[in-house]
């Protein structure tokens, strides 16, 4: 049974096997209806401030800050003769300040309008929103990591280089590859690094002018074609098949002396492992091309299979997905790229080399015996993320990482099993990897869309799944629970989606199309935002002017 809050009243009796689980709770639903009838976030009991208890309205910094206020105590320097060559700023900048207590309150209130992993289940497919252990935060803040400068003498940062070397060793061992380029700053930057290595290798063979096509399956993340195009490759799509897999014959058909590489995501964005991956790799290599693997979904197979064994030449690893460095509302990420023996010589600078009694840092291409293709970024990459990722790996160990992948896959399949009868699986009810993909066929004739379902999930206290991606499936809903969810959490999530599915099928359209009703904002007008973009705060016009 479910209680008034729609939560299971008895832990042992809940779950997808409970026939009542899908039915929802009438009392709670009626309450929801009453709220909806009020139609406004102000509700039927308006307050003077517009706040609603803990739900506070917070103005912009620019509406509460003052130009003469500062929250940092600094003493004005003694008189001195400036040496700025007469290029001093004469005009005010326009940056209001807040005192420390006001700053604290402003940003705490803003944080309370956000949903994070620590708030609840965050099943955003292909994003791997797993638990972010605070041990990793503590480790990243050790002064020997956070308070060292990238260009201080190498002799004073031996521990930092050791950490990079150790992280590299872990990544190479987990993937069975030859080398790693740590410096890329995020997944897409890692893709760029890998594709640059491939381009450099092709040019080294004298085929730069002729090999300029990159095969990209339609199901690929948008960064793949964008990356290939960025460095002058022509993108040739590989169409999707009805089973969600890339077929070796489709690849072979497009292979030729003009093909530089394939960019294949494995496990793919349909949540499936590519069963023909080894054959595809062989076909690619036989044609003199390279196999770039998008490693965004590595979390499904860490400790279960090694990309190097599958024939991969380059793969980026999103440390902010698989190895749990926090997403931070959109970064910072970190996208190290592991490279095969064929590509290893082309890895960019800088890289760490273990010398006889110390670690060296190779910062200039001219200092390398290899053939580095260049440099991806200033300095050495995302050290703060390296520490967190290594802390994660040390904590899990080889046994824990394997278990984590198995649990991630188990959890996704458990959701699949719990929803297969009510929602539609575009590629049939077969095992998935760490994420399960539904399409919107089950919403046919309900007047409810994938977007509406997502917004109704918000009202139920969940972050929605990835919507409308991959593009090869109509109205895609890509659910990735990760290994961080308990069985009880999954059971409630499944019950909630079952209830939504029943509601949609029973014609309770309003529950969806008007949602969210309970979030800090109702549905936002994205068209308006794009039509006349307002991208910064501007001071309101003085009253006299405004009246004209």
């Amino acid at each position, binding site marked *: 049974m479910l209680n008034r809050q729609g939560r299971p009243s008895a832990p042992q009796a809940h779950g997808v096997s409970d026939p009542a689980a899908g039915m929802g709770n009438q009392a709670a639903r009626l309450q929801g209806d009453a709220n909806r009838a009020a139609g406004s976030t102000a509700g039927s009991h308006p307050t003077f401030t517009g706040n609603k208890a803990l739900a506070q309205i917070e103005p912009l910094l620019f509406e509460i800050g003052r130009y003469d206020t500062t929250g940092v105590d600094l003493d004005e320097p003694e008189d001195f003769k400036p040496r700025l060559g007469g290029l001093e*700023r004469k005009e005010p900048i326009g*940056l209001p300040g807040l005192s420390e207590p006001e700053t604290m309150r402003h940003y705490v209130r803003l944080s309370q309008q956000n*949903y994070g992993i620590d708030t609840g289940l965050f099943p955003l497919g292909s994003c791997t929103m797993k638990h972010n252990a605070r041990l990793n935060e503590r480790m990243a803040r050790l002064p020997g990591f956070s308070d060292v400068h990238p260009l201080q*003498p190498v002799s004073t940062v031996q521990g930092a280089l050791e950490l990079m070397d150790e992280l590299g060793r872990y990544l190479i061992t987990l993937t069975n590859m030859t080398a790693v380029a740590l410096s890329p700053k995020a997944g897409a930057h890692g893709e760029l690094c890998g594709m640059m290595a491939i381009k450099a290798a092709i040019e080294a063979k004298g085929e730069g002018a002729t090999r300029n096509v990159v095969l990209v399956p339609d199901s690929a993340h948008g960064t793949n074609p964008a990356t290939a195009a960025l460095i002058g490759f022509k993108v040739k799509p590989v169409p999707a098949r009805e089973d969600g897999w890339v077929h070796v014959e489709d690849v072979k058909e497009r292979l030729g002396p003009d093909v530089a590489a394939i960019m294949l995501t494995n496990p793919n964005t349909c949540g499936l492992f590519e069963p023909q991956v080894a054959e595809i790799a062989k076909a690619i290599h036989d044609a003199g091309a390279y196999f770039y693997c998008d490693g965004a979904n590595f979390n499904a197979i860490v400790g279960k299979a090694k990309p190097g064994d599958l024939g991969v030449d380059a793969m980026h690893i999103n440390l902010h997905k698989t190895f749990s460095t926090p997403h931070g509302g959109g970064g910072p990420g970190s996208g190290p790229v592991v490279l095969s023996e064929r590509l290893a010589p082309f890895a960019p600078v800088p890289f760490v080399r273990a010398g006889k009694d110390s670690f060296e840092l190779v910062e200039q291409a001219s200092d390398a015996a290899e053939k580095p293709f260049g440099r991806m970024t200033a300095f050495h990459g995302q*050290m703060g993320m390296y520490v967190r990722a290594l802390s994660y790996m040390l904590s899990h160990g080889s046994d824990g990482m394997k*278990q984590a992948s198995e649990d991630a896959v188990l959890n996704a399949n458990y959701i699949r099993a719990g929803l297969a009868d009510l929602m539609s699986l575009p590629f049939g009810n077969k095992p*998935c990897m760490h994420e399960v993909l539904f399409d919107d066929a089950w919403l046919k004739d309900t007047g409810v869309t994938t977007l509406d379902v997502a917004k109704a999930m918000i009202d139920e206290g969940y972050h929605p799944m990835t919507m409308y991606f991959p593009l090869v499936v109509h109205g895609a809903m890509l659910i990735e629970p990760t290994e961080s969810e308990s069985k009880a959490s999954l059971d409630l999530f499944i019950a909630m989606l079952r209830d939504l599915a029943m509601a949609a099928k029973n014609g309770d359209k309003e529950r969806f199309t008007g949602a969210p009703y309970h979030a800090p904002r109702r549905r936002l007008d994205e068209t308006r935002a794009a039509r006349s973009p307002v991208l910064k705060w501007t001071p309101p016009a003085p009253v006299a002017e405004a009246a004209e």
Partner: protein
Amino acid sequence: MRYLPLSDTDRSEMLARIGVKHVDELFADVPKNLLLKEPVDLPRRKGELDVERILSRMSAKNIPASSVPFFVGAGAYKHHVPATVDHLIQRSEFLTSYTPYQPEIAQGTLQYLFEFQTQVAALTGMEVANASMYDGSTGTGEAVLMAHRVTKRRKAVLSGGLHPHYADVVRTLSEMSSDDVVTMAPDVAGAEDILSQIDDSVSCVVVQSPDVFGNVRDLKPIADKAHQHGALLIAVFTEVVSLGLLKSPGSMGADIVVGEGQSIGNALNFGGPYVGLFATQSKFLRQMPGRLCGETVDADGNRGFVLTLSTREQHIRRDKATSNICTNSGLCSLAFTIHMTLLGEAGLSRLARINHANAVKLADQLSGVKGVEVLNETFFNEFTLRLAKPAAEVVERLAEKGVLAGVPVSRLLPGAGLDNLLLVASTEVNTDDDRAAFCAALKEVL
């Protein structure tokens, strides 16, 4: 394993519900011979205490900036970051959220991004700023590509005062895209004749101020010449605090302003994560890379914020996108915004004056040391010394004496014949004692 909630009983029940006997049946699509039978050859799991011991041991082998007189800069700067900043960015709701794709439950992120964009636009003197790039160097690479799209030309001219790593990033990207790059010779004095390089074939001129040698550059004549020839001026900075005291690049005619925001709110972190600031004029908005946050209203008419103009971006445009960037520097931009809010205009300009004053004081004191010459006419908080000995050697010896003295130019520009030059930075963290220690140690070494 402390991070994994499932018990073996849970696992068995769930496998039964799915209808399989063993979890490996869920991996049936992995070729049998490639599915690993045993855990990979790495150590087993460890408790918190053991992990702390291992990593603390590595950390202890490094010399933190705060523990010594510290004058290292060249693109990353040691500043004091208020405790409030680090507390706030560790709020769960900021730290563990994703890119705000569901704006109704991401107004916290979106509103601070809107504040960030407003602050960056104001600082740079530009009309619009994006929601951040990875760092200043990759932002510079993106700026060059953007200029190529705007001008439909494919040749960039890089000033000899541009940070050599930034120039390397641009050159790497340009070589891969078969675009032309002209790099001026290292310009220690800030006196290069870049104007003569600008003609009708040039897409953009990339000029850093203060430049890597510390010189403060007047961008106005360069902007004027660039505009006469239909080219864009990309103004770069690596020390954002300088904008608290110097004329904004926008007011001098820059078309794109890009730089490193690390100094505000972010630790040194051995090079990353940092936060790239990127701003331009409204007329170039549709060619801009990266995410943008915009204001709108919700169904009840309440103000709210969303990611907008995403038709420029890779997830919509795929191979026609303005950039491949996806994840950027969210949390670092939050740190920037909170620190900037704490400072306000009054605090930022005072911080900038303190930095400049400390650097002037240091330059005066160092120029009194035999074998040391300060080369700069102008500078903000960093300048170039010519030493009587190779700087790399001197820096090592000073490190042995417990002073981290700066960056030898030869580390950034090996083989350029600038081996005796040393870049020295001074910020608000330096004390009279630090300066005295530096001068004393230098006297002994030279």
